């Protein structure tokens, strides 16, 4: 062990200006090939219907130059930072500060989350944003079961979000069922679709699984668009009832909550209610996931991610394990979808594009697969950051993309790549040294 680890691990990594230059040139060449058609030549339909085109070599040169320069900068940053997996010696005070922060970050965030409506009561924008962030936290935690724990790459998670949203919307508008009746139904329906997706993809892993789930997401969206008689097609479903506080509507009328409590009505009440609703739902997701991780089924999910063959050899039923992972993740997606529908009051297929799946997946990956706190932080960063970069206007996506690339270079395992064990020995027995000396273990 010690003999191999003593060998300097970064010796194989070349450095020096020649290497940096070579790498930058390759990147620039790739960019040239890619962009020569995308940027260099622009085509348009001419006045006679014929195709006209003109060249933009100036823009092309600028882009290739940017890639060249950017590649050099990234490589320099990389070398300054050192190899990604290297053990860095952190000074003691910083270490203890970090472990202190690590221990108190989650409770602090939770307390802060509970206080958000109190602190920002008069700032509707922040409240709306917080609700959005929490929706994505919940979606992230739901997808985390499938991707982070069971290791099944799901690119079609938005399908379950859509199933949940449409379940609530249709049940509520057609049959007048209340939100609290529909919520479990939406979860059950989404879980059912999760199992339905699970069956054909049982034998697939990795890239192949990703492609099928991607297709599944699109199928659900296309069905919603085309099944006009049921879903209203592209027009969506409108007039979805708002949630009630266990039967008491949050309206200005006489039977509204404000009137019953004898306080003045404010539309903010509803927003605050929605905030606590999604907070509770997200926390429920988190709690269930944490509980499941400690049970054999959660352990089996993680083992499945690690090694499917070994799981089989240990007598784990791989089929049911995969299906429960799909169903559990889908169920939380369905809950979140129902919430989304009741919050918006209107849903249409446009809200359930691949972009949503990609965003939720990015949250899970950035957060560090399997880490609950990491996912919450990533959702906050992604959704919050998205709003923060609003000032950059059209460059928002660009800035955002660069930020994500940098994060993945420096924290390839996500914000929180650490995995907490779930099994502990009951008693911490000391092991006598004569048991563990060489030649006996």
């Amino acid at each position: 062990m010690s003999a191999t680890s003593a060998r300097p691990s970064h010796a194989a990594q070349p450095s020096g200006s020649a290497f940096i230059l070579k790498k930058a040139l390759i990147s620039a060449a790739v960019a040239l090939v890619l962009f020569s058609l995308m940027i260099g030549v622009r085509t348009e339909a001419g006045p006679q219907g014929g195709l006209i085109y003109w060249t933009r070599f100036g823009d092309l040169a600028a882009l290739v130059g940017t890639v060249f320069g950017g590649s050099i900068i990234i490589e320099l940053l990389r070398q300054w930072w050192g190899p990604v997996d290297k053990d860095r010696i952190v000074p003691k005070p910083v270490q203890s500060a970090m472990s202190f922060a690590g221990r108190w970050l989650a409770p602090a965030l939770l307390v802060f989350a509970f206080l958000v409506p109190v602190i920002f009561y008069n700032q509707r924008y922040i409240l709306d944003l917080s609700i959005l962030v929490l929706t994505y936290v919940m979606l992230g935690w739901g997808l985390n079961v499938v991707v982070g724990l069971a290791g099944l790459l799901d690119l079609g998670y938005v399908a379950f979000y859509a199933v949940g949203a449409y379940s609530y919307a249709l049940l509520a508008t057609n049959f007048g069922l209340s939100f609290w009746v529909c919520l479990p139904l939406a979860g059950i329906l989404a879980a059912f679709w999760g199992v339905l997706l699970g069956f054909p993809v049982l034998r697939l892993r990795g890239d192949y699984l990703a492609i099928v789930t991607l297709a599944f997401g699109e199928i659900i969206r296309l069905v919603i668009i085309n099944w006009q008689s049921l879903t209203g097609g592209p027009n969506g479903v409108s007039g979805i009832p708002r949630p009630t506080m266990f039967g008491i509507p949050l309206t200005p009328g006489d039977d509204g909550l404000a009137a019953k409590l004898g306080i003045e009505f404010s539309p903010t009440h509803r927003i605050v209610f929605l905030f606590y609703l999604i907070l509770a739902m997200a926390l429920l997701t988190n709690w269930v996931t944490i509980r499941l991780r400690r049970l054999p089924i959660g352990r089996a999910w993680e083992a499945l991610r690690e090694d499917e063959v070994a799981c089989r050899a240990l007598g784990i039923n791989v089929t049911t394990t995969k299906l429960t992972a799909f169903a559990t993740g889908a169920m939380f997606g369905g809950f979140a979808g129902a919430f989304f529908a009741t919050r918006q009051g209107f849903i249409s297929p446009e809200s359930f594009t691949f972009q949503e799946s990609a965003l939720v997946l990015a949250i899970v990956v950035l957060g560090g697969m399997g880490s609950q706190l990491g996912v919450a932080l990533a959702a906050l960063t992604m959704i919050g950051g998205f709003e923060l970069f609003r000032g950059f206007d059209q460059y928002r996506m660009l800035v955002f993309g660069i930020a994500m690339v940098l994060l993945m270079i420096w924290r390839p395992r996500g914000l929180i790549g650490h995995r907490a064990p779930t099994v502990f020995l009951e008693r911490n027995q000391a092991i006598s040294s004569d048991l563990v000396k060489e030649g006996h273990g």
Partner: protein
Amino acid sequence: MSAAQATTPLLAVRGVRAAYGKIEALKGVDIEINAGEIVALIGANGAGKSTLMMTIFGRPRARAGTIEYDGQDITGVPTHEIARLRIAQSPEGRRIFPRMSVAENLQMGADATECSEAEREAGLERVFALFPRLKERVAQRGGTLSGGEQQMLAIGRALMSRPRLLMLDEPSLGLAPLIARQIFDAIRTLNRQDGLTVLIVEQNANHALKLAHRGYVMVNGLITLTGTGSELLQRPEIRAAYLEGGRHG
């Protein structure tokens, strides 16, 4: 052993054929393992040793022949149910769960079997008594263990299901001779103290045959030789093929 041989064998493989696609890996294999025995299965690379072990476990399925365990036909039983019949295996290449802790890896071994908390605790104690090194490393991630420790973990994990038959695929693969000897010692202890029946698949013929009561030699998907461990060790063809010239014992 004479007492055990009088009764029906714990595991009987009769005329089993198995194939990967069109390539037939087992061409009619017969082996028997009696309760309380250590049986070694030796042979060169690609002889079909690992396939036989996997076929007993139902993956790949036997295309012909029968596999009987404890008087019950398990030829068509799903893999995860076979494991519940208290047959455990430590697969080739160890295949521990690298990101899970040692304790979690061991738990995984017991999860599929219905056993009480007390039995689980007893199982852990038993594994730690056999491999104290694992106890030392209990909170560590599996992937950070050394090769020998990972092999101990793979065997320990298999033992957590309290098996009657333990099947080990190349337990000495890639291990230093000293560590390999520790592993073989542990297997002998398990057999002597707990009466555990062991099927051991090995390329390291010398070690395996010295350990085993009986051995089978496999060539190209067929059993070509069988006998007691010491008998096989004396056979000139065995010495030529597996002991001299190639790897030392």
